[in-house]
Each structure stands twice: as structure tokens, then as C-alpha cells.
């Protein structure tokens, strides 16, 4: 097993390697002093997100409902009807499990669940983002592999929409000044198989980096003057328990740190 160092999120290769390496057991990792210290630090950072409003957007079947289900401690849906329009979601408590620590709890106020089709983006995503402090934009990384051009085109259009709506360029929707956009390359479930089959971690990490870098470049170009909103592009698996706990913890910690930085600069 590789040495479980805890890199900064900017170093995606190292992060991916870490995810693969520790797939064998988060518990085992948390026993190691260095790892334990890092986790403790990471969870202290995550605390900074308490009370923040979160929005989840993304194309159809990118994993929006699954992420919301995870956060609500519900079963991740395996198959369902695609979300249409703007559904009301009652307020709920988020209990995020932390290995070796007490779960971190967030309050999610009454929110909306929006569909992912392009017409729904134009009509309803503004509802979800208007009051949000942090927006998670989900991309299915497998679609990026299978339908590369089409997926990248959609990502560009979505992020452009985000910038235009957020800056108030098309109507009255204006996002919060210090809003943060975290792009999640979802469905990296193949990490699990890699660990099982002992495939070359460096090669997979590099390939994943190439994909996330493409999304990152497109996002930066599409955001233009609103580039400071972007916190990064993060790999995630929502359906795998261990990968989700580890990767989403790291994402939250990184987003929290960047939100703090933005908050300090804003004062």
C-alpha cells in the first residue's frame, strides 16, 4: 500500500493516489498518527461550513439526487425517475460520518431539487443557486470518457450560465458575492477496481488528472471575471461508502478553507 500522505487538493495526482491507497480501509488510516492529525485538522476546517447553504446542480444523471440522498443519510437511489422542474425538499439535518470522530452536523434549510436538462438549467437552477454559499456542480466523469466533446460542451455551457446568472447579466438573478463553485468529477468508482486488481496507480492517477484538468481549464475560461468563485475540480464516488467518506471530507475541508480565505479578503 502506498504511503498515505495527505496532500493539498491542488495536487490532484497525489490526491487520487491517496484515494486509491486508502481504499483498503479508512479505519486503518485513521489509526496512523500522521493521518489522524491530518483528519482532525481537516474536520476542524469542515466545521467552518456549518450553517452554510449548499446547492447541487449538474446535468441529468450526474448524481445530484444521490448526493442529496447521501447528505440526508438516506439510501442512494439506484434507479428512479429523472428530476423534472423544481421539487421542494423539506429541511433536514446533515450528519456527515467522520472515522474516529463524532459526526459533523449541518443544517440544510428548506431547499429545492432541480432537474438537469438544459431547459431546466435556464428555468430552475437559479432557484437553487440564488441563496447558496457553496454550489456543487456535478459532472459524470464516465460520460467525459465516452462522450468527450459533448460533455465538455455541456460543462462549458453550464459554467457560462453560472457566470452570467451569478453576475446578473440575464435578468435579476445575482448570486452571493462570496459564492463558491466546487466542481465534482463524480463516479470515480473505478478506483475500487484498481485497488482490487493492483493496476498501475500512477497511470490511472495521471489519466484522471488529465480529465479533471480539462474540466478545470474550461471552467476557468468560462468563469472569466468570476474565476475567484471556483474552488477546484474534485474526484468523487457517491455510491462507494469509503471513497465517499474520504473524498467528500477532503472536498468539504478544501471548500471551507477557500471560503474562509474569500471571507477574510472580503472584510
Amino acid at each position: 500500500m502506498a504511503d498515505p500522505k495527505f496532500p493539498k487538493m491542488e495536487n490532484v495526482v497525489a490526491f487520487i493516489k491517496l484515494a486509491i491507497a486508502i481504499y483498503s480501509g479508512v479505519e486503518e488510516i485513521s489509526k496512523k498518527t500522521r493521518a489522524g492529525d491530518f483528519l482532525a485538522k481537516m474536520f476542524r476546517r469542515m466545521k467552518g461550513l456549518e450553517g452554510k447553504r449548499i446547492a447541487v446542480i449538474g446535468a441529468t444523471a450526474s448524481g445530484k439526487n444521490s448526493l442529496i440522498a447521501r447528505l440526508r443519510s438516506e439510501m442512494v437511489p439506484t434507479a428512479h425517475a429523472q428530476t423534472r422542474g423544481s421539487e421542494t425538499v423539506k429541511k433536514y439535518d446533515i450528519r456527515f460520518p467522520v472515522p474516529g470522530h463524532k459526526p459533523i452536523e449541518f443544517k440544510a434549510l428548506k431547499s429545492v431539487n432541480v432537474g438537469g436538462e438544459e431547459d431546466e438549467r435556464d428555468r430552475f437552477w437559479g432557484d437553487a443557486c440564488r441563496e447558496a454559499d457553496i454550489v456543487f456542480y456535478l459532472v459524470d466523469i464516465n460520460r467525459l470518457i465516452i462522450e468527450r466533446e459533448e460533455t465538455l460542451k455541456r460543462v462549458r455551457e453550464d459554467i457560462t450560465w453560472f457566470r452570467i446568472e451569478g453576475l446578473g447579466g440575464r435578468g435579476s438573478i445575482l448570486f452571493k458575492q462570496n459564492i463558491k463553485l466546487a466542481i465534482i468529477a463524480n463516479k470515480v468508482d473505478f478506483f475500487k477496481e484498481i485497488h482490487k486488481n493492483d493496476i498501475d496507480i500512477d497511470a490511472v492517477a495521471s489519466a484522471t488528472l488529465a480529465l479533471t484538468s480539462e474540466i478545470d481549464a474550461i471552467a476557468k475560461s468560462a468563469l472569466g471575471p468570476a474565476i475567484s468563485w471556483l474552488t477546484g475540480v474534485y474526484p468523487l464516488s457517491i455510491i462507494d461508502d469509503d471513497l465517499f467518506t474520504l473524498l467528500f471530507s477532503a472536498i468539504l475541508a478544501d471548500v471551507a478553507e477557500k471560503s474562509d480565505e474569500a471571507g477574510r479578503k472580503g472584510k
Partner: protein
Amino acid sequence: MPLKKALSEVGVDLSSLPPSFVIGIPEPVLKVHGGNGFVLSQVVRLDNCIVISTSCQAGLDKSGRHVFLTELTVEENVETGSINLNSDYKFRPVGAGKEISDLVKEMREIAFDEINNLLMISSRFSRYKHLSSSQMIGMRYQPDWPKKKVINWLPSGGNYAIMLMALLLMGIVIYAYLAKSR
């Protein structure tokens, strides 16, 4: 074809549709009404036309998610809008075969009475801009019709007097009990 493009081809701006109007059948509505025979019909009255929509389930996609078939009809005559069971469509799904035509035919037949009913209500009460054949349970934006049921927790009329009597009686019993225990 994306909805925005299809609508613009027939002169309807997507942004003119109310947010309560949806394509397909929302999951919360499907959960209540479910079943393959369920058809959701909607009528939207715009300034220069009426948009009629009917949606039904049309199987599952390769990942196991429900797929819906929606037929949109744009009628220019706002006052006498009606549906034609035998009209041909301007746009159809790419690669759609006979099974789609059969499903559309079946859906039209199921929705025929509902749509005509909604059109009748729409022409009588022009303040209703978006009418739906079913309550849009769980949706953030509600159509103007059917009206959302208002549950009035406060009693009214005769019930109010009975409730007051009950409270008074309860007060007497509590007072008597306390007096006895002293």
C-alpha cells in the same frame, strides 16, 4: 430536440412558460399516481397561444431510469383551443417507430376528456394561466388549477362553539380536581 429549440420553432419563448409547467412527470407526482396508464395533462394560456402538454411513462432507459413521452401542442386560437386526436406531429423523437405512434395515440385517447375539461375551465376563467389534470404534489411551483387544498386548522361556525364548550368543561374538571386534592 431540446425543449427550448422546439418551442422557438413554433414561436413560443421558453421563458414565457410559468415555472410550474414541467415536461415529463415529476417523481413526487409519479409516486402518488404511478402506473403505466397515468397521463399528466397540462394547459398553459399565453398571450398569443395555448400550449397543451400530455405526458406518460414510456419505459426505462439503459440505466433503469423512467423515460417519459411528452406531446406538446401549440394552438394559436386562445379561445377555441382543442385537441385533434388524429393530427400528425411536427417534430418527433429521432428514430421513433410505430411503438411511439401507438403510445401517442393511446395517450391522446386517455387525455382527451381531461384536456377538453382544462380548456373549458381555461376559457371560463382566464385568470388561470396554468392548468394541470393532477395536483403537482411536492413541486415548488404550483399550477393555478387545480387549486391547492387549504387545510384550515381553526374551527368555524358551530364547531367553534363546540370547541369552546369542550375547553370550558375541561377547565371545570381540572379546577375540581385541584380543589379536591387540596
